[in-house]
């Protein structure tokens, strides 16, 4: 394949990745990695290097819109980043003593199982807001945003410790494998903290850039960030994220949850296949 063909092909695929990644709060890596490894025959190491850049691009590209329009909850994001950043360092520290196939099987299975509560809540627009108390109250983990139809949604959060724990798992996974953090972040905010779906995915989207940046140094140092791959990926992702952010703001919580459930299933299957030796 000519360089120019590769660049254009990856550019257009990455637009698609950016749109989906910014809506579900997982970043574009979930699309970019299997495309590179299966379709393009690129080694998984280079694919993960590209995925890190894709996640940072999706995060910053879409968050600029989400933060301005106050759908992202900044305080919840910053608070949970304590756990994701600590988790990323822990993941890096224990990487030598872990078996990545076993980890992928475990975490892929957890994601599959978490589809059940996700599907049970499939019609939920705005969750019944819990009472704000204890640590959540002290930390101000509450907020409001305006839907595209002008409705103001006020919400509180609950179970901050469970939220932190789930996010720490996300961080460890990112530090260990370079992938897979976003899904656990969204699940923590949705299932444990009871936030509206759009707040969960956009706050995850806000955080994944920091988690990916925390792991970026090692991929850079190893030379896994390949200019030919990351240039079209970054450009496509940034355009896709700008489109995806506009789509999310106009979408209903129920729509976002349905898209998330599908992407979650794909992510879980990708992870389990990877454990079985299929390079995705």
């Amino acid at each position, binding site marked *: *394949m*000519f*360089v*120019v*063909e*590769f*660049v254009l092909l990856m550019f257009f695929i990455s637009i698609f990745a950016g749109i989906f990644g910014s809506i579900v709060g997982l970043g574009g890596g979930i699309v970019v990695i299997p495309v590179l490894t299966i379709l393009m*025959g*690129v*080694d998984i*190491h*280079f694919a993960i290097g590209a995925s890190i*850049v894709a996640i*940072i*691009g999706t995060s*910053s*590209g879409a*968050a*600029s819109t989400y*933060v*301005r329009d*106050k759908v992202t909850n*900044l305080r919840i994001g*910053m*608070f949970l*980043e*304590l756990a994701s*950043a*600590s988790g*990323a*360092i822990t993941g*890096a*520290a224990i*990487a*030598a*003593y872990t078996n990545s196939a076993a980890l992928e099987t475990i975490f892929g299975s957890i994601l599959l199982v978490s589809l059940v509560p996700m599907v049970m809540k499939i019609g939920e627009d705005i969750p019944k807001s819990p009472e704000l108390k204890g640590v959540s109250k*002290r930390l101000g983990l509450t907020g409001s945003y305006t839907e595209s139809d002008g409705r103001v949604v006020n919400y509180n959060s609950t179970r901050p410790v469970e939220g932190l724990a789930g996010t720490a798992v996300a961080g460890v996974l990112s530090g260990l494998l370079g992938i897979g953090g976003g899904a656990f972040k969204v699940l923590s905010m949705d299932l444990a903290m009871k936030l509206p779906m759009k707040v969960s995915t956009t706050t995850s989207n806000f955080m994944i*850039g*920091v988690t*990916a*940046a*925390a*792991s*970026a*140094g*090692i991929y*850079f*140092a*190893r*030379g896994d*960030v*390949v*200019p*030919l*791959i*990351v*240039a079209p990926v*970054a*450009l496509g992702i*940034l355009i896709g994220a700008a489109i995806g952010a506009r789509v999310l703001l106009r979408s209903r919580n129920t729509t976002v949850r349905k898209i998330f459930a599908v992407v979650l299933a794909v992510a879980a299957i990708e992870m389990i296949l990877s454990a079985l030796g299929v390079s995705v």
Partner: protein
Amino acid sequence: MNWRDPETMNVVIGKVLRYGVIFSGAIILLGAIGLAATNGLSDSSGMLTYNPNMIPHDNLDISLGGLVQGLTTFSPFSWIELGVILLIATPVSRVTISVFLFAAERDRLYVIITAVVLTLLLFSMLVTPFIPGFHA
């Protein structure tokens, strides 16, 4: 701008992210155009081969001197590298500026939280790649 108003934080962080993305994207675009212009009709597989016996891979000179030299000689690879570094720096600057924004809001608890996040982030990015036994 009223720095004690919590809304200010959304405006400023939104702008930091937007400008970071536009600036880094523009530089990567320049590099990508240069790459297509100079190497567009070469075979891409040569640049995509992973060699497990060669880590770090030499597709990028990650030293500062190498980067500066590449930039001054208009190497498209170095310009892409610069753009990617700026893209990675965008969330880092977002966290850094948040520390000051929370300070302006007189929110001491979140100044501490954000400062800890920034410390962890910089440690993870810049120090752990050089600790033996990390990242296996």
